[in-house]
């Protein structure tokens, strides 16, 4: 019996070994040095592990405060991009479309990519069948809530949006000076993410055409839902990522935040006084029997068109974002929700521990659950900064009283976005429908 088990184990180990070899091809070129621009912290631990396996590839990691500015400049100049560039999924289509990346299918074919990162990730890392990079962290949406405020005001953790609205109204009545939830004034990722979270999308790319349809039933439902709560004054939109907002999270004047799961780490460092108060759960759904999730943020690592060693760069980005040794390092030192890789499953149980910042909750498991609810994908529009700014201005107009009904913002936003596509020379745009 023992021998059989051993043999089985051996076979398993061998098969894993064979698989692993398939995932990570041998590097055949001469010794090279490749550069990488990334803003995440402590990528060096993974790099060290990588260099042990691939001694002929040296990775130089650089981090600038002006990441995108430098990348845009190098891209326009036609030279100067590093071999590997970190880009948020929302901006990636723009870079792909501009020719900033080069395909790496030769070293990472679509079948292997899907095995390692899942079907959906193709939407964030490839276009027209060309794979340009690999996904690192997940932006799966989660509901972060203050247990202390929930206890104090007798609130229940919502699992449907209906319950969410109920709790919001109850809270507003009991504590008018506090906020139940404060959606961002702007930050298009959030609004697009919530439509995605309900199983919908507002735009996509398919077979050489861009599709735009902001006023589809799911997007309208999401905007009507939030619009009702905002119009009646139950919740208020507020500007995120500034001193006032940090302060509200730290001091406990906001009871819930909907954000990408990387936000867990962000809270830990930026709201230290709220230690022990926060909990995390997968976001509410309109139909809990058919739950979805979407993403808000997250980034991939792409091989740029300027790279002279695409082979080394391709091997590196694949190893970095899927090999368990790297995932362990990224989890431990960079504190990233690196859950996109399917091989995360191999390490999740050793990484999932009770977290004192979240009152002892095992948040890794909860976030992993939230991530696994993502079952749709789409390609973002290649004019993201304009799309984002247009929404900010419309929401500010709403706050200033220039727009009466919140949900009216949606068609206005669509109109502006269509205008931007034209302005930036995209004439292959189909308005009013979306590919499946």
């Amino acid at each position, binding site marked *: 019996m023992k021998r059989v088990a051993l043999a089985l184990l051996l076979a398993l180990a061998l098969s894993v070994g064979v698989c692993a070899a398939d995932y990570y091809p041998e590097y055949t070129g001469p010794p090279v040095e490749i550069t990488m621009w990334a803003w995440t912290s402590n990528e060096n631990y993974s790099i060290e592990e990588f260099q042990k396996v691939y001694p002929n590839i040296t990775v130089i990691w650089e981090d600038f405060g002006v990441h*995108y500015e430098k990348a*845009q*400049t190098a891209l*326009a100049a036609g030279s100067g991009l590093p071999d590997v560039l970190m880009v948020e999924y929302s901006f990636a289509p723009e870079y792909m479309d*501009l020719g900033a990346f080069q395909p790496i299918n030769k070293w990472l074919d679509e079948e292997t990519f899907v095995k390692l990162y899942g079907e959906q990730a193709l939407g964030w890392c490839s276009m027209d069948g060309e794979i340009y990079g690999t996904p690192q962290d997940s932006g799966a949406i989660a509901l972060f809530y203050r247990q202390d405020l929930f206890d104090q005001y007798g609130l229940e953790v919502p699992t449907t949006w209906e319950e969410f609205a109920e709790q919001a109204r109850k809270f507003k009545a009991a504590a008018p000076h506090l906020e139940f939830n404060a959606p961002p004034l702007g930050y298009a990722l959030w609004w697009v993410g919530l439509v995605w979270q309900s199983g919908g999308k507002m735009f996509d790319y398919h077979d050489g055409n861009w599709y735009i349809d902001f006023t589809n039933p799911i997007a309208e439902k999401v905007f009507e839902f939030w619009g009702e709560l905002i119009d009646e004054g139950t919740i208020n939109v507020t*500007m995120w990522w500034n001193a*006032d907002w940090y*302060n509200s999270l730290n001091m406990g004047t906001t009871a819930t935040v909907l954000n990408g799961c990387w936000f867990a780490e962000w809270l830990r460092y930026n709201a230290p006084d709220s230690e022990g108060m926060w909990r995390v759960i997968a976001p509410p759904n309109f139909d809990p029997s058919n739950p979805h999730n979407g993403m808000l943020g997250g980034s991939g690592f792409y091989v740029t068109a300027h790279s002279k060693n695409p082979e080394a760069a391709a091997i590196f980005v694949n190893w970095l974002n899927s090999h368990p040794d790297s995932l362990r390092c990224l989890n431990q030192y960079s504190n990233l929700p690196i859950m996109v890789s399917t091989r995360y499953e191999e390490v999740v149980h050793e990484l999932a521990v009770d977290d004192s910042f979240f009152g002892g909750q095992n948040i890794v498991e909860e976030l992993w659950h939230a991530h696994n609810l993502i079952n749709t994908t789409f390609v973002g529009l290649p004019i993201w900064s304009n799309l984002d700014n247009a929404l900010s201005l419309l929401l500010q107009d709403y706050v*200033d009283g220039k727009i009466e009904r919140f949900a009216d913002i949606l068609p206005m936003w669509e109109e502006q976005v269509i205008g931007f596509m034209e302005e*930036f020379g995209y004439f292959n745009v189909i308005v009013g429908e979306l590919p499946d």
Partner: protein
Amino acid sequence: MTWISKARLKATLKAYLFLAPFLVVFIGLVVYPIGLGVRLSLYGQRGARMWYVGLDNYKRIFADSMFWQSFKIPLFLLLVQVPVMLFLATMIAFLYETRKGGGPVYRFIYYLPYTIPGIVSGIVWSYIFSDSMSPLHPLLSLFGLENVKLLTRANVPGILLVIILWQFTGYTAFLVYSSLIAIPKEYSEAAQIDGAGLWQIAFRIKLPLLKGPLITLFIFNAIGAMQVFNEPWMLGNLVVLPLNYTPAMYIYNSAFSQGRFTYATAMGVILAVITCAFSWYILRSAGRQILGRRD
């Protein structure tokens, strides 16, 4: 060469030798980039692809209402902030003069804000006007104003005014003061003997003599107003400002967040031309008055 004397050639060479450090930097970092910018502005660009378009960028800019609307804030600063600041700075300089040795302690204190980088003071000021942490709220509540939202989009020009005045008035006063002490004492002594009071001397005798330096300061500050960037950029973290809030912000955003580098370059060239033309006009008309020239 026979038409130029050896001594003169030597003197010219010597002059250029002394000018060389400046010229090298000026040509390398100002003239050359402007030339390069003018060339770039004649190209269309998307990503790394570039193609010659002639004056198309300029034609588009003349039709781009976003660009021309962005001059609202510089115009406001030019018409309000610059005159107010020059007036305050001149008053402060006169006050310095009434102190022994020019009031070195006051001069030091008023000069301090200028030593703080604009981005840093922008962060601090954004705290001062923030909703949840503003130290002004307790003050306002003394006057019965509770929960006033200070940082709204409509208030931003006023807030810019406060920040820029705070930052540059002391520095400007310092410059005015240094021109003031260069005025020969004999003028004010003569006026004093004729029975003029302190403020009479200041306004009737000294102020006209300060005209030259004040015009120079006006031009410098007008150029600063045209290029204003740091302060609205920092306030943009607390309140939504359009991408084209000022010309410099529109140029920056066009280049770095929209990746339209050649278009941004063409706007930069236009901004430079406007600034130069404006300075030239002021200098010319002011020069006429100062020198009493009549053509």
